[in-house]
């Protein structure tokens, strides 16, 4: 265990003496022991005693300071576990005037909880609040204004305006930044008051504040109010970002805290640039943020760039920007799994918009054995998107590996991915088929079934190329018990009926059990038998008669019956036409480059890092009115 000295401009040489450092250096931050509370707190969570509230009330009025404070703590503990302690309101309130900041915070916490239910009594607290906003200590001023905004009681709100007016102009930036957010709180409770007192104008002025943190919170407050106004149907743009505002935001961006950067980058994304040069300028100023340690800053920067890059015409700059975005996106994968997942969902979106962005980075998306399933599934999808001729071998050997893992869902998806790769890359199709055959050789039921489904798609894409595989597939007929796998195999048999000697025999098995099969299997059987008949009319007349009979007479599904009747008529009136219909040439399938409609994709790219981008769904589908709230959901569960 040793450190070596670093000397300026010198490479480290072994001549520098090593010096022992005690082990304790490794253990970083000091662990703070809170022995004083430990004993007390464990009592707070004890089961309720008889008349506990009565006891608490007595203690809250005790003549001893420590006793009162401990009683408050016990009240808060009860509040947390949702016991009703609202009856103690007056007793707790008495303890509000104190020099002890911790006690003050605790009382405030209590007030925030019960102010709504005890509006008359809250009035008693107003005086202390207003007095606190004049306290010489900035922490006390900020605390008072922060708490007043959270009280949610009609009566107290009217008293909020004057102190707020004062705090917005406080000389201390900590108070100003707290007051800025308080305006948003007030707007949430009573929008009229914000308008009447001209708080919006004050906020707009505060964007020019000298302190970056105040600017950031002002931006957050204005954006919050803007969103609330839009949600309530207002058309007015409350937060207009002008060229002048833009300059101030860009300056604050480099100086404020990480969370502030997210707010400012969000505002930058909303700005509508006047010309191309301005868009370029914004992109260039945002790029350094890609190197930030906080993943949400990185994604907010990506979002701002993706929005403003739309107006950039210079090919070189676009290329450069895209190149600079790639490594930070990959680095997001070294975050905790939840953040990784958000990043992966967004990378998926970005790849649909700009498929070239991570073209040489497939290996970093290989799944680790202990990745959570939700991360693995996203990685699979991205790997297939990034698959190309040059990396397909590595991809296939990975996918084969995944197909032997334990989680059934993941195994199936891996096999599906093999099929998608085959369809995407013509040159690799044969290698994919070989891998699938190996997997079928394992005879694990769900592996075989999924492989059969996938093979059907490969037959669709490359007709008459892999007929040699058919005997292997047919050999596994007995293993299949899932409708989709059965239907797939039946389709293959029907399609290649003239190449399979015992096709009538194989299909006969399904005709025998026709009424017991699920509808998709019935439909497939029906079509396959007709195909067989059209190709080998001599040997299968009886079979086609039998299937049409059963399908029209003994089947519950109108779809199946209808299809059977149509075939029957076609065959009896004009076999030539039947051939044209049933054995028609089918258009080849291909893997879609995007899974999201272009307009929606454009919208989601503008929402990078948000829930909408994670779900790949527009915002309206999961928030806002018309949605069933979780509250009503729980009500329904309770009924």
């Amino acid at each position, binding site marked *: 265990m040793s450190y*070596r*000295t*670093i*000397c*300026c401009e*010198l490479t*480290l040489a072994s001549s520098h003496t090593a010096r022992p*450092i005690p082990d304790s250096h490794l253990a970083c*931050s000091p662990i*703070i022991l*809170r022995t004083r*509370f430990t004993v007390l*707190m464990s009592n707070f969570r004890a089961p309720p005693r008889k008349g506990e509230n009565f006891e608490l009330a007595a203690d809250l009025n005790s003549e001893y300071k420590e006793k009162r404070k401990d009683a408050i703590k016990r009240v808060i*503990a009860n509040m947390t576990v*949702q016991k009703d302690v609202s009856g103690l309101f007056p007793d707790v309130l008495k303890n509000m005037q104190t020099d*002890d900041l*911790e*006690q003050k915070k605790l009382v405030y916490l209590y007030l925030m909880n019960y102010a709504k239910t005890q509006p008359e009594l809250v009035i008693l607290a107003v005086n202390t609040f207003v007095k606190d906003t004049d306290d010489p*200590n900035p*922490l*006390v001023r900020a605390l008072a204004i922060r708490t007043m905004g959270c009280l*949610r009681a009609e009566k107290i709100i009217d008293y909020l305006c004057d102190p707020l007016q004062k705090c917005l102009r406080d000389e201390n*930036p900590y108070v100003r930044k707290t007051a800025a957010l308080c305006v948003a709180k007030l707007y949430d409770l009573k929008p009229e008051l914000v308008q009447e007192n001209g708080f919006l104008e004050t906020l707009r002025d505060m964007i020019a504040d000298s302190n970056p*943190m105040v600017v950031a919170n002002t931006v957050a407050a204005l954006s*919050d109010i803007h969103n609330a106004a839009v949600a309530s149907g207002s058309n007015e743009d409350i937060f207009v970002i002008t060229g002048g505002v833009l300059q101030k935001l860009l300056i604050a961006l480099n100086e404020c*805290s*990480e*969370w502030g950067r*997210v707010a400012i980058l969000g505002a930058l994304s909303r700005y509508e640039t006047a010309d191309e040069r301005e868009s370029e300028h914004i992109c260039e100023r945002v790029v*350094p943020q890609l190197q930030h*340690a*906080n*993943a949400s800053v*990185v994604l*907010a920067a990506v979002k701002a760039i993706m929005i403003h890059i739309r107006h950039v015409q210079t090919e070189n700059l676009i290329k450069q920007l895209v190149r600079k975005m790639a490594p930070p996106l*990959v680095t997001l994968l*070294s975050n*905790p799994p939840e*953040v990784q997942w958000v990043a992966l969902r967004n990378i998926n979106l970005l790849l649909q918009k700009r498929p070239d962005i991570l073209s040489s980075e497939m*290996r970093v998306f290989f799944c680790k*054995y*202990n990745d959570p399933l939700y991360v693995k599934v996203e990685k699979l999808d991205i790997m297939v998107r990034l698959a190309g001729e040059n990396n397909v071998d590595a991809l296939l*050997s990975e996918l084969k590996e995944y197909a*032997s*893992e*334990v989680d059934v869902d993941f195994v199936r998806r891996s096999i599906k991915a093999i099929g998608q790769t085959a369809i995407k890359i013509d040159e690799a199709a044969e290698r994919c088929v070989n891998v699938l055959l190996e997997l079928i050789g*394992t005879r*694990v039921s769900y592996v075989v079934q999924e492989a059969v489904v996938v093979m059907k798609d490969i037959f669709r894409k490359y007709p008459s190329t892999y007929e040699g595989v058919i005997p292997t597939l047919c050999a596994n007929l007995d293993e299949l018990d899932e409708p989709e796998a059965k239907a797939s195999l039946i389709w293959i048999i029907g399609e290649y009926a003239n190449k399979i000697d015992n096709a009538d025999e194989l299909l006969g098995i399904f005709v025998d059990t026709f009424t017991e099969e699920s509808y998709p299997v019935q439909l497939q059987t029906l079509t396959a038998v007709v195909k067989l008949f059209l190709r080998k009319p001599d040997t299968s007349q009886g079979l086609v008669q039998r299937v049409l009979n059963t399908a029209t007479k003994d089947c519950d599904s109108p779809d199946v019956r209808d299809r059977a009747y149509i075939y029957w008529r076609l065959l009896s009136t004009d076999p030539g036409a039947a051939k044209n219909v049933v054995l028609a040439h089918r258009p080849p399938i291909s893997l879609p480059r995007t899974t999201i409609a272009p307009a929606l994709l454009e919208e989601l790219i503008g929402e990078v*890092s*948000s*829930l909408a981008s994670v779900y790949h769904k527009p915002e309206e589908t*999961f*928030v806002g009115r018309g*949605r069933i*709230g*979780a*509250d*009503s*959901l*729980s009500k329904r569960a309770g009924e």
Partner: protein
Amino acid sequence: MISAFFIFNQKGEVLISRLYRTDLKRSIADVFRIQVVSNSDVRSPIVTLGSTSFFHVRINNLYVVAVTKCNANAALVFEYCYRFIAIAKSYFGKVDEEAVKNNFVLIYELIDEINDFGYPQNSEIDTLKTYITTESIMSTASAVEESSKITTQATGATSWRRADVKYKKNEAFVDVVETVNLSMSAKGTVLRADVDGHILMRAYLSGTPECKFGLNDKLVIDKNDHGLGDAVELDDCRFHQCVRLDEFDSQRTISFIPPDGEFELMRYRSTSNVKLPLRVIPTVNEIGTTQVSYVVTVRTNFNNKLSATNVVVRIPTPLNTTTVDCKVANGKAKYVPAENVVVWKIPRIQGGAEVTFTGTAQLTSTTHRQVWARPPIDVDFQVLMFTASGLIVRFLKVFEKSNYHSIKWVRYLTKASGTYQIRF
């Protein structure tokens, strides 16, 4: 933005509940308990019910949950949850049910300070510790001046540092910690090998020191033309918020005013020329249906003056294993039935040395024979004074008004925990 913040225990009991916004009721906690805690089928870290979204992170026996009712910034919400966990760890040492219960007053104080109306605020641990402490702060005349200082720091351009830091001896410790991610195929080819590097710094420097930091990475080399011999190619790097990103972008210099005490200066990623410190050669044979034989050799791949310590090799066994007889010359090996692995612990392996494990697993016969998935062998280890990427700290310069002399120390560590996987 974040509408509410909760901490639940394993059973779904509420330990901490704080509503930041008016659009939710406290009873929303019940919905989470019913829909997520007692639902074993939840496979996503975000659950949206109606227009309410629950973001949850599991840590030890706790759920840390943030609830939103809008199209929230998902990355921000998760970063916030993890930041809370980091802060709690730094305050209480560990984050579990007991720690939360014992410190709930402090936690309420903290979550009110780092979040206002659902918007995360200053969450720098060092600054928080100056005014949220275990001792009660009295609002007296002397405290006013102190508070002014704190608030200026908490909102200033260097929100992470007080101005009046003083040390008798000015020292800075740099720890370069590299985590190697490896996945190797059964044939011994490297599927993926990369390094996640963290540069941790402990700065005990007086005043407002201006630091400049240099590595032997390509970026620096290109600039100063030192010769390309030992340049390390970094794919990407990310910095603590104290580093001036615009200067890094334009001039490739890492300059900053460090927070006082410990912080993570930088994270980087390297994928080229990764030197793998340990080479694992497994030979595993399934003998019929009743036995599996193992020969696993671990070879160290570095200078013999160094050594790998705390080596833990986890060798998977089939699910129907009854006993494994293990033979090792170094360390201890033991079959752990609960995890279906043999854990082989070796306290120290010298550079250039080789150690071997041989063993046979006895299997019971099962009626339903499923193919054994063969999870990869996993190796944890630490190697001091070695970097897998080859990264070296070239210089750390400290400039301060008072022009004091400062001593800087550097240490390197390469490690793996759960990320070094070899298939067989």
